């Protein structure tokens, strides 16, 4: 219903734009003008109403017109590197199997193989996207770990069941005195002192 309402209001704007043009156009006399066709007029009105106008509005006001929220992602301008990024997050997942007290790292590369740009995976994007409260962040972390448990159990049939799973975060801060020597890659968890790694969430699989 919400989508239908949005389309209805936006279509109304297109019709209004065409009507307005006809009203103004009838005022023009004795001027040399290009030949016009209804198809072109509709296309221009459509594109201005649905995309160009809202995009310019969102660019200046930094919010989307309430009637066009459906197209939120299409009309919001990019804000690539607009903000200072003091550190680069690396995520890890560790599991503990039933009857074993040690934590073992789950290779996330198996589950998140895609890196469209650089080494930015969909996992990184999952946590970057959207400015959310701490409470909602926990819901996200929970959702990710639940999915990983399900995938792990699907692919490791016949192995000891999972007892616990936890999500870890390491923030890498650039250091002016020691520039990097290699292209970016997620630092291996084994090379990191555990006190620098933050445990974000631990789940008991049985619960």
């Amino acid at each position, binding site marked *: 219903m919400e989508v239908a309402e949005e389309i209805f209001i936006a279509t109304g704007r297109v019709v209004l734009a065409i009507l307005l043009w006809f009203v103004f156009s009838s005022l023009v006399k004795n001027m040399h003008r*290009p030949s016009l066709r209804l198809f072109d007029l509709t296309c221009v009105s459509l594109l201005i109403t649905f995309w160009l106008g809202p995009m310019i509005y969102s660019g200046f006001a930094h919010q989307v017109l309430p009637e066009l929220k459906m197209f939120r992602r299409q009309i919001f301008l990019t804000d690539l*590197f607009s903000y200072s990024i003091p550190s680069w997050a690396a995520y890890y997942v560790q599991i503990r199997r039933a009857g074993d007290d040690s934590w073992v790292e789950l290779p996330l590369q198996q589950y998140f193989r895609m890196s469209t740009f650089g080494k930015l995976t969909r996992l990184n994007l999952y946590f970057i996207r959207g400015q959310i409260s701490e409470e909602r962040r926990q819901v996200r972390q929970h959702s990710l770990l639940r999915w990983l448990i399900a995938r792990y159990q699907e692919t490791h049939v016949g192995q000891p069941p999972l007892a616990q799973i936890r999500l870890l975060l390491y923030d890498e801060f650039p250091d002016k005195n020691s520039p990097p020597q290699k292209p970016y890659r997620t630092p291996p968890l084994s090379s990191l002192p555990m006190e620098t790694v933050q445990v974000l969430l631990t789940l008991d699989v049985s619960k």
Partner: protein
Amino acid sequence: MKVGSINLTHNINTIITKWDWFWYAPTPRLKLHCFRLVMGFSLLIYMSYNWQTSAEWLTTQGFHLTPELTTEQRITLSAPLLPEVLLPWFGIFYLLSTLSFLCGKWLRLSCPLVFCCTTYVTLADILNAFTINQLLIFSLAIVSLAEWRPTLPDEQRAQTIPSWPIRMLQIMFFMMYFGCGLTKVVQGDWLHDDSILWHAAHGYYRNELAVWSLNTLPIWCWSLLQHFALFVELACPWFLVFRRTRYFGLFCFIALQLGIALLMERLFFFSFQMFSLSLVFIDDLHLAAIQRKTQKLVTCLKDKKFLKEEP
């Protein structure tokens, strides 16, 4: 009608006439053709590259936002994922449509198909839908509408189209740079922090050249590059609106994109996309001259090949 010393009717007449010329003036089809060619090629390599991991982002094999999280992000438009059996078929269909689009065959069919496929993958994989997808979707919508437009006989003869498709692409290019620059200044930290670019160079996109640059260039050089990038983005209206500064502006934009492509791993796809958009600012006469020279070169190469084969 006169209000004080202003002739209102004349002014309205002038504004409407200029508006009409801006959007509907006949313009050579060549510009849109060149844009379609380069944009189609950039789409082809972008999608072919990412297709290796398609199972992750198009099927339930990969991690996706749950309906609850989709609502949380206020996303009202999303598409269902593909069943794994259909994945190769969808890939073949997408590839063939893109090839047909690129080669200029059955454009009335291939343009909307490529548009639908690109929109579908963007809506299916919301986690990964990037700026590049937004650019592609809009560009494809424009090209599709332009192709579906019924052509008049005199337009067919003169090989012209109304200028609105080109104008829309020009405005998109303009908004991409100027809007970005404005966001950096108004919302972002670019005026308060000189080391944003230096910090960015350390992150997920760091490649060999970035490592070398971080080890060689002092921090003030990175600040200088950062301010150059901001200047280029904010000077976009000055560069593009005036004919005299347009080519210098395009040179600056291409230099900026080249810097991004060289210093940031795989952001080459984005730079390529922006490069294809910059073509719509090249003068029609210059574009025609480039086309003539390219054709001449191709003919020349063909002749040489023919001569070699003859004995």
